[in-house]
């Protein structure tokens, strides 16, 4: 790869992809659409989801062709998440593509990949990675759900929660503990209720991203990969997802900044546009600085994701997630502040970005947690 590509200079094709996507989301994920979907329990529009997967081929964008995808790279996927973040798209895309598809690609199980990825790639399958439990931890020691093999069948028992789109998913990929260590399991939920599995939608502060609680009581499941030793694949999946979430956060932050800038140009106080006051102008300049640095952090993460080095991926992912989480929160709060009273209302989009920022700040680990990991990687 050339330095130009490494540096994130977009190709003509990438610019086109962005344009197509922005036009699509402008029509199908405009603010009224977002508000309509976020008020539902399922949290997405089935028709839009079908179009994303079937027409725009986004669900399988970065899935290799042998599994039914288009085989594009992470640079393109990063672009997609950035645009979705801008538009606050309500859809089970992040959980399906950034978590479930990633873990299947990394689990080292060719047969499972062949069976399960094509459905994801085509957009038919909504998939969810069920990792976190009530303690809300993203590390290996947080996994207490047990998998037991009885008469050649694996059965899962335990509670997963904060699972993105867990209540609407057709396929659950469950991280559980076996006698040999951590393993990954698949539970097909596409054909109606599964005996022993209770799924409960969880209302969230950020209504644009849905979560569910999953109670497993001896639920039959298919082992994906080896029993034991699956944690490294899960860890890298989380790192990949962290980079892609950072891209989404970047999109959200840049859109929140645009809203604030546009408002500062037209809103007048004391006979002048408020954006002509240094207090507002300099705050917006700091917000742009934040956004551009976040873009660098995302670019760095996408580069590491495209490369093969695991330590480099874990490092760049924690940098991107820690940095972009803080930027998104700061920029969204700044957007509320610049809007004044109107930014504090339910009807204004600023609060939607702020809540998305707070929700995604916690998702996959807080900035402080990621910096603590970096401290470990740096030997501090």
């Amino acid at each position: 790869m050339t330095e130009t590509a490494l540096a994130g200079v977009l190709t003509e094709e990438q610019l086109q992809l962005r344009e197509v996507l922005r036009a699509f989301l402008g029509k199908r994920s405009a603010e009224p659409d977002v508000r309509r979907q976020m008020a539902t329990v399922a949290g997405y529009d089935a028709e839009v989801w079908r179009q994303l997967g079937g027409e725009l081929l986004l669900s399988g964008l970065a899935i290799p062709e042998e599994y039914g995808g288009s085989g594009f790279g992470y640079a393109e996927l990063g672009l997609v998440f950035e645009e979705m973040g801008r538009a606050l798209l309500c859809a089970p895309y992040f959980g399906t593509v950034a978590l479930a598809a990633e873990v299947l690609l990394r689990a080292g199980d060719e047969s499972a990949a062949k069976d399960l990825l094509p459905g994801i790639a085509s957009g038919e399958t909504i998939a969810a990675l069920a990792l976190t439990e009530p303690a809300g931890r993203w590390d290996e020691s947080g996994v207490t759900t047990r998998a037991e093999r009885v008469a050649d069948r694996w059965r899962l028992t335990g509670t997963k929660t904060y699972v993105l789109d867990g209540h609407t998913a057709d396929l659950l990929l469950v991280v559980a503990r076996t006698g040999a260590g951590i393993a990954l399991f698949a539970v097909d939920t596409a054909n109606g209720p599964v005996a022993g599995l209770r799924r409960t939608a969880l209302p969230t502060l950020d209504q644009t991203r849905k979560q569910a609680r999953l109670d497993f009581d001896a639920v039959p499941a298919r082992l994906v990969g080896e029993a034991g030793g699956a944690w490294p694949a899960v860890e890298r999946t989380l790192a990949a997802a962290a980079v892609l979430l950072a891209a989404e956060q970047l999109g959200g932050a840049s859109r929140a900044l645009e809203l604030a800038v546009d408002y500062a140009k037209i809103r007048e106080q004391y006979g002048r546009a408020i954006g002509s006051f240094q207090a507002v102008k300099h705050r917006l300049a700091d917000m742009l600085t934040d956004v551009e640095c976040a873009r660098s952090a995302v670019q760095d993460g996408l580069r590491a994701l495209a490369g093969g080095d695991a330590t480099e991926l874990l490092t760049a992912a924690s940098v991107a997630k820690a940095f972009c989480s803080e930027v998104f929160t700061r920029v969204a709060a700044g957007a509320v502040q610049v809007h004044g009273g109107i930014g504090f209302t339910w009807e204004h989009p600023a609060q939607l970005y702020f809540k998305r920022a707070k929700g995604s700040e916690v998702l996959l680990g807080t900035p402080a947690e990621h910096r603590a990991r970096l401290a470990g990687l740096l030997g501090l």
Partner: protein
Amino acid sequence: MELDFGPAVADFREEARTWLAEHLVGEFAAHRGIGGPADSEAWEVRLAWDRELAAGSWLGLSWPVEYGGRGLTLLEEIVFNYEYARSGAPYRATTSGLDLFGPMLLALGTPEQKRRFLPPILRVEELWGQGFSEPGAGSDLASLRCRAELNGDEWVIDGQKVWTTMAHTADWLYVLVRTDPESRRHRGLTMLLVPRDQPGVDVRVIRNLAGQDEFAEVFFTGARTSADLVVGEVGQGWRTAMGTLGIERGVTLLPQQLSFEREVADLVAAAREAGDAVPASTRDRIVEAWMSVRVMRTTNLRTLGEVLAGRTPGPQAGIAKLYASTSHQRMGHLAGEVAGPAGQLVGENYALDVRQRTFLLSLAETIYGGSSEIQRTIIGEQLLGLPKEPRP
């Protein structure tokens, strides 16, 4: 925060404490800590509680007896507010009349106006709403456009106000309007008292970001009020309005201090319980938050001490709101961080817990009552004597 206000008010303090303990029971006790300046939670219960307070003569403590008050000293009022906050009683629903309009009328109203309007406030019979801001004039009140014209013995009002807290529950509005259509900026404004329940007044509720029906837009289309319902002089409304904004802040932050102390104690306790799950750097930031609350306490006590000593409050009184609002937001961010993924869940119908609601509403604390930007300008110009920005 345990304060010793001295022997002179010991009996009064005991009386207040006893009354609060005896009456803060049942449904009222169940709503401890509910409400805030921008929080309309449990409005009906809080209104009932205000009536309970009225029945016990605890409203308008420093107001003259002839208007239904008790004619007590500032110190006694401070003592009561402190004990009130300490008891955790619900946030008063009637603050607009009691803390904003009432003092303005006491200072600038005619004796007839005071007799007419003050007692019903203290009896919680008439609620008030403030009509200052307009869509085109948030912080910049001098650019108001809502206008009124004298037509015989009535003012006829046309225009729009916004951010009127709980306007839909108000019986009366005190409204700053332009009565001289030729005037510019601060001149030609007048403060009118307008009955809300009339054909010319339409109220459209605005939901806040926490999902509450907290404030409202008010549309005046040929609304009417009696010619004599002017506070201060016609054309001098700017001065009247500024009078209400000039109330010293330091002392009013004392009760808020107690809620900050409760919040930060909860934060420390939550972090302690979570143990190693909270990264060391987050714990350090919690210590910073805890420090900031401790510092605010002394800042408020310094102002209190000066007021008690009969001195003019020092600069700390002027910076207290700016510091408190930004510190409070930081506390909210930290509390969310410690709560983790569980803290991102809400109840049915977007029901928020007290931590979530407090945090979301804290975003307004750097906006209303003089945004942080305006606070900094005031601090720079009034406390540091820096030159004003030249007008273009």
